[in-house]
C-alpha cells in the first residue's frame, strides 16, 4: 500500500513539474517584451532610439532582469546556431541575426558584419557634418532592420558626396557583404545539436524562486504578487468555504431523506427540480440578483455592492459578524444552490445503490433494521464515493468563485485573476495557476490516502496491482 501511495505521489509531482515547465514557457511567450514593460515606468529605460544604439541599452536592462541566461537546462538547435545565441537580447537584433544566419550559415561573418555596422554608426554619430550625419543615420537604421543582402547592398550605394567621408567603412561593409552573399548553409549544418547549459538558466532560477515562495512582482503596480494573493485569499476562502460548507450541510440530510421516503410523483418532481437547479448558471442568477440589488427602490438593505472595502478596513467578521455574513449572503447563495442540488442527487443515488447491495439484504435478514441499519451499514458505504470529492473541494476553495467575484465586485482571487489578465500582468496570472494546480495535486493525494485508509477493498486491490 505504501509503495502504491509513493507511486501516486511521485507521478503527481512529475505532472506538477511538467505544468511548471509549460507555464514558464507560456509566460515567456505571452508576456511580450518584459524589458520594455518593466522600464516603461522609469525614466532611464530604453526609449525608441536608433536600433544600433538601443541594443546596448536594452541588453543592460535585460542583464539586470536575468534574461541573458539560457532558457532551459538544454536546447536542441541546428548546428548553424552558435551555442551562445541566447545571449542576444534585443528582439530586432535576434530577428535580423537569425535571418542572416539562416541565409548564410556563417556565424563569425554575420558577427563581423554587425560589428562593422556598429562601428560605422558610431563614426557617423561623431561626425560634425549634420546633414550627412542625419542622412546616414536613417540609412543605417534601414540597413540594420533589413536582412535582405541585395537590398542592403543597394542601400549602401549612394551619391559620391555622401559616400566620400565614410569611404573606408563602406568598403569594409561591402567586403563583408560580398563574402556573406557567397556563403550558404551546408546541408549537414542543419542537423540538430544538443547544447547543455546546466543549472544556470532562467527556468531553474524561476522554479527555485517559486518553490521558496517568491512569486515575483506584478508588472501592473510593482507590488509583490505574494502580497496581492495574501490580500485576496481570505475573501475567496470566506465565500467558497461558506458555500461548500452550507451545501454539504444541506445536501447530506436532504439526500438521505430523499432516498428513504417512498418513490412517488412528488419525489420525481423534486429530482427534476434539483437537476434544473444544477443546470441553472450561477452567473445568471448573480446578475439578476445584482440587478435587484442595484435598481432604485428595490435593493437589499443588507447588501451594498461597494461594501467590501468597508469590511476590509474594519476587520470584517470579527467586529461585525452578522452584517458581514449578510453582506456575503448573496454571492454565497449563488454558489451554494447548484452544488447543493448536485450533492443531494449524488448522495441520494449512492444511498439507494448501497441499499440494493446484497450485504444490506443480509443485514436485514439478520434482523437489523431501522436506524441501526442506516447508520451502521448504509451510511459509511454511501459516504465512500464522497471522499473523491475532497480532491475537488480543496482547489475549489480558491477557484470556485471567479465569475461570481467579478459580478459582485468581491476583491478576491477570481477578480485578481481577471484583472491581472486584462492588464497583462502575467506574473500574477501564472503563479496563481501554478498555485491552483499544486492545490489540486494536494487534494488528489489527500483523497487517495483517505480512500486507501477507509476502504479495505481498494487497499487490497492496490497491493494486488503491485504484485502483478
Amino acid at each position, binding site marked *: 500500500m505504501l509503495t502504491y501511495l509513493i507511486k501516486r505521489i511521485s507521478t503527481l509531482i*512529475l505532472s506538477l513539474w511538467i505544468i511548471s515547465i509549460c507555464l514558464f514557457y507560456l509566460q515567456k511567450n505571452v508576456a511580450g517584451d518584459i524589458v520594455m514593460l518593466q522600464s516603461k515606468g522609469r525614466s532611464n529605460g530604453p526609449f525608441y532610439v536608433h536600433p544600433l544604439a538601443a541594443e546596448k541599452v536594452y541588453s543592460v536592462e535585460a542583464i539586470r532582469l536575468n534574461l541573458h541566461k539560457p532558457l532551459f537546462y538544454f536546447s536542441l538547435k541546428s548546428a548553424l546556431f552558435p551555442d551562445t545565441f541566447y545571449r542576444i537580447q534585443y528582439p530586432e537584433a535576434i530577428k535580423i541575426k537569425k535571418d542572416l544566419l539562416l541565409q548564410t550559415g556563417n556565424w563569425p561573418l554575420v558577427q563581423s558584419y554587425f560589428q562593422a555596422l556598429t562601428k560605422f554608426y558610431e563614426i557617423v554619430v561623431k561626425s560634425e557634418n549634420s546633414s550627412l550625419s542625419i542622412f546616414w543615420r536613417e540609412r543605417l537604421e534601414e540597413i540594420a532592420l533589413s536582412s535582405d543582402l541585395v537590398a542592403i547592398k543597394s542601400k549602401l550605394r549612394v551619391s559620391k558626396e555622401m559616400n566620400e567621408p565614410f569611404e573606408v567603412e563602406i568598403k569594409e561593409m561591402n567586403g563583408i557583404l560580398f563574402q556573406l552573399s557567397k556563403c550558404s548553409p551546408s546541408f549537414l549544418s542543419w542537423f540538430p545539436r544538443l547544447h547543455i547549459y546546466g543549472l544556470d538558466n532562467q527556468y531553474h532560477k524561476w522554479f527555485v524562486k517559486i518553490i521558496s515562495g517568491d512569486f515575483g512582482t506584478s508588472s501592473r503596480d510593482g507590488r509583490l504578487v505574494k502580497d496581492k494573493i495574501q490580500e485576496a485569499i481570505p475573501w475567496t476562502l470566506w465565500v467558497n468555504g461558506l458555500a461548500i460548507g452550507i451545501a454539504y450541510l444541506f445536501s447530506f440530510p436532504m439526500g438521505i431523506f430523499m432516498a428513504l421516503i417512498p418513490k412517488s410523483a412528488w419525489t420525481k418532481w423534486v429530482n427534476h427540480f434539483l437537476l434544473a437547479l444544477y443546470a441553472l448558471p450561477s*452567473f*445568471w442568477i448573480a446578475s439578476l440578483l445584482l440587478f435587484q440589488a442595484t435598481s432604485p427602490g428595490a435593493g437589499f438593505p443588507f447588501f451594498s455592492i461597494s461594501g467590501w472595502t468597508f469590511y476590509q478596513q474594519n476587520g470584517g467578521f470579527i467586529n461585525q459578524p452578522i452584517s458581514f455574513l449578510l453582506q456575503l449572503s448573496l454571492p454565497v447563495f449563488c454558489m451554494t444552490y447548484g452544488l447543493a442540488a448536485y450533492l443531494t442527487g449524488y448522495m441520494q443515488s449512492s444511498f439507494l445503490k448501497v441499499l440494493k447491495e446484497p450485504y444490506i439484504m443480509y443485514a436485514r435478514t439478520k434482523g437489523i433494521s431501522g436506524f441501526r441499519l442506516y447508520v451502521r451499514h448504509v451510511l459509511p458505504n454511501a459516504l465512500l464515493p464522497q471522499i473523491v470529492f475532497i480532491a475537488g473541494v480543496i482547489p475549489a476553495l480558491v477557484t470556485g468563485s471567479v*465569475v461570481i467575484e467579478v459580478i459582485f465586485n468581491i476583491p478576491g482571487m477570481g477578480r485578481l485573476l481577471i484583472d491581472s489578465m486584462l492588464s497583462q500582468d502575467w506574473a500574477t496570472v501564472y503563479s496563481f495557476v501554478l498555485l*491552483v494546480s499544486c492545490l489540486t495535486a494536494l487534494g488528489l493525494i489527500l483523497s487517495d490516502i483517505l480512500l486507501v485508509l477507509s476502504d479495505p477493498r481498494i487497499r487490497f486491490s492496490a497491493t494486488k496491482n503491485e504484485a502483478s
Partner: protein
Amino acid sequence: MKIKYFFYVMLFLAVFGDWIANEKPFYCKFQGKNYYPVIESPLVKLGWKEWPAAFQNATWLELDLEKKVNTLVPYSPETIDRNNLGLKSPFDKQNINSLWERHWMGTDRIGRDVLSGWIRGCRMAVSVGFLSVLIAGIMGIFWGGIAGYFGNERFKLSLFKAGVLLIWIIGMFFWISLGFETNWNSRSVFYWQIIWVIGGVCTLFLPSWGSHRIAIPVDGVISLVIQAIDAIPALFFLLALLPLIKNPGLFDVVILIAIIRWTNIARLVRAEFLSIRDLEYIQAAKLLKLNHFNICWKHILPNAMGSLWITFAYSFAGAILLEAYLGYLGIGMPSGTISWGSQMQQVRENPSAWWLAVFPGAAIFLSLFSLQKMGEKLEAKSF
C-alpha cells in the same frame, strides 16, 4: 412538454437562424425586378451573383422597395436600428412603423435587436459545443483508446526500435519547429524532413535486433498528461492559454475548449477499453489475426460508445457554459461577436436593462438543462 425539445429548437435556430432573423427581406421587388435576398446573399458572398448598385449603397432598412416580405424578425444581429437606440425595453414604447418591426426582446445600448442576437447566440453555442465535442471526442478516443488498449505492458518493442522511435519523435518535433522558424521556405530543411519521415518508415521494416523486448508504458505517459491537464481547473486553463493567441476567434476558442475537455473523454475511453480488451470476443478476434486497429475500431469502440454518448452530452453542456463565461467576461472572442455571454456582459455596464440578462440567461439555462436531462436519460438507459 419535454425539456429536450429546447435542444432541438436550438439546433434548428442554429442552422436556419439567418432565415428567421435577417435585415434582408425574403422577397422584394425593386425597380420592377424580383429578388430573394435572404436566399441569394450566400451566393453573393461567394461571388456567384451581384446585387444591383443601389443595394450596396443603402442599408436594407432605408431602401425604398416596391414590395417586400420580411423575415420573421426583420433585423440582423449586427443591424443598428437608429430609431431605437439606448436600451429600449420590450415593454417600452418603441419607435417603429408596424408591429412586425417591434423589438420583442428590446434593444441594446447601440440599438441592436436582442431577439436577433439571441438567435445568433444559438448558433454560437451550438457550433462551439458541437465542434469542441467533435475535436475532443477524436482526441479523447484516440489517446484514451491507445492507453486503454495497450496499457503499460502490451506495447512491446525491441530495445533498438524503442530507441529509434524516441529519437525519431524528438527529431520530428525539431524539424517541424525548424520549419516554422524558416517559414517553410528553406529547401534543405524540407529535404531533411522528407529524409526523416522516410527513414522513420524504413525502420519499421528493419529486423528487430536483440531478442530483448521492452514494454513501452503508453498508459503511464498518457495518464500523466491527462493528470497534468486535469490539475488545472477548466476556466483557469482557458484563461491561461488564451493570451497565447494574438486575435482569438471562434475556432481558437473551440480548439482550446477541446484541449481542456478531451481528458474527460479519454479517461472514460481508457477505462472502457481496459475492461473490454480482455473479454472473450476480443480474444477470438485476436485469434482471427485481426489487426489492432480493426479490433479497436470495429469491436471495442462500438461497445464503449454507450457510455461515451453520456459524456458527449455533458461535454456539450460544459462547452456552452465555458463559452458563455468567456463572452460574459469579455475575454477571448473578438469584440464584435454576438453570443449569449456577450449579450449578458452588457448588463454589467447597464444594470437596469433586465431584458439583456433574462433572455440570454434563460437560453443558457435551458440548453444546459436539456443537455443534462438527455445525459441523465442516456445514463438511465445504459445502466
